[in-house]
């Protein structure tokens, strides 16, 4: 059984946990939900190319539109998705070939977004999350990716295994419209 490390960040608190592969790191879409009527879920897969970043965030924005989000909430989601996908392109696959999978689920007033790559993985997630920390200063990466995901979403969970890949899960509550 292969181990993975995980960090969950909620309301400014980060918790580290370890898990095993069977705990669902590579679980199939729909596995949790079994596509029940109360839970709606979609998934897309696309090549790890920078030109697909805008496509991914537009899909996430369009999907969340069902909950009548504010412009600001949409903007937050687009930024967070952009950061997660950019990380997969640049760090996960180092700009090389690869497939990124994005899963979106809605439950009541919350949107859940999952971005998965099968790239190099993260050695230490807590360190990677530190604002301004980057492994690619040569590419002028600002090191703000995870900080933005944390700032703009209500919950961020990262699971990673070296040489196997990374899963980023984010949740955001959408205030019910008036």
């Amino acid at each position, binding site marked *: 059984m292969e181990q993975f490390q995980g960090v969950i960040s909620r309301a400014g608190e980060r918790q580290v946990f370890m898990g095993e592969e069977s705990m669902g790191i590579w679980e199939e879409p729909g596995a949790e939900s079994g596509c029940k009527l109360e839970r709606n879920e979609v998934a897309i897969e696309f090549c790890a190319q*920078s*030109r697909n*970043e*805008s496509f991914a*965030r537009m899909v996430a924005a369009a999907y969340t539109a069902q909950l009548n989000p504010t*412009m*600001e909430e949409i*903007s937050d989601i*687009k*930024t967070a998705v*952009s*950061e997660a996908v*950019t990380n997969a*392109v*640049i760090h996960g696959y180092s700009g090389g070939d690869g497939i990124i999978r994005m899963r979106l689920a809605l439950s009541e007033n919350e949107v859940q977004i999952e971005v998965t790559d099968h790239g190099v993985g993260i050695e230490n997630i807590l360190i990677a999350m530190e604002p301004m920390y980057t492994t690619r200063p040569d*590419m*002028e*990466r*600002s*090191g*703000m*990716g995870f*900080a*933005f995901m944390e*700032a703009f979403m209500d919950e961020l969970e990262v699971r990673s295994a070296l040489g196997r890949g990374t899963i980023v899960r984010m949740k955001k509550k959408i205030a019910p419209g008036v």
Partner: protein
Amino acid sequence: MEEKNGKEQVICEKDGQVLIIIPTSDLDHHCATFVRKKADETIDRGEVAHLLFDFSKIRFMDSSGIGVIMGRYKKVIFQGGKIACCGVGKEVDRILTVSGLYRIMPCYPGRKEALHALKEGKA
């Protein structure tokens, strides 16, 4: 890395000692590559002292945009150059605020005010 559909990602204009950088497409990792390349063509020739980022044509920026601004800032600051921005919409404003970039890059409502401040050394 040429865009196949030929869509312009950024426009650069010179106004005296100021290079005006106008991203015309969402400033993400993809667009950042084009902005960096195009802006550096002029900056590296030493033709300008200051930089003005005009964000009036975009409604989206992520941390890649922060990287591009910081990178260009480092290029001009050691020669006594300044940077400023203008035309900032709500979405871009949020990113610039959260990242703390306003501390190094003052914001002006329009291009005219920003150019004036850069040229008068007030930025």
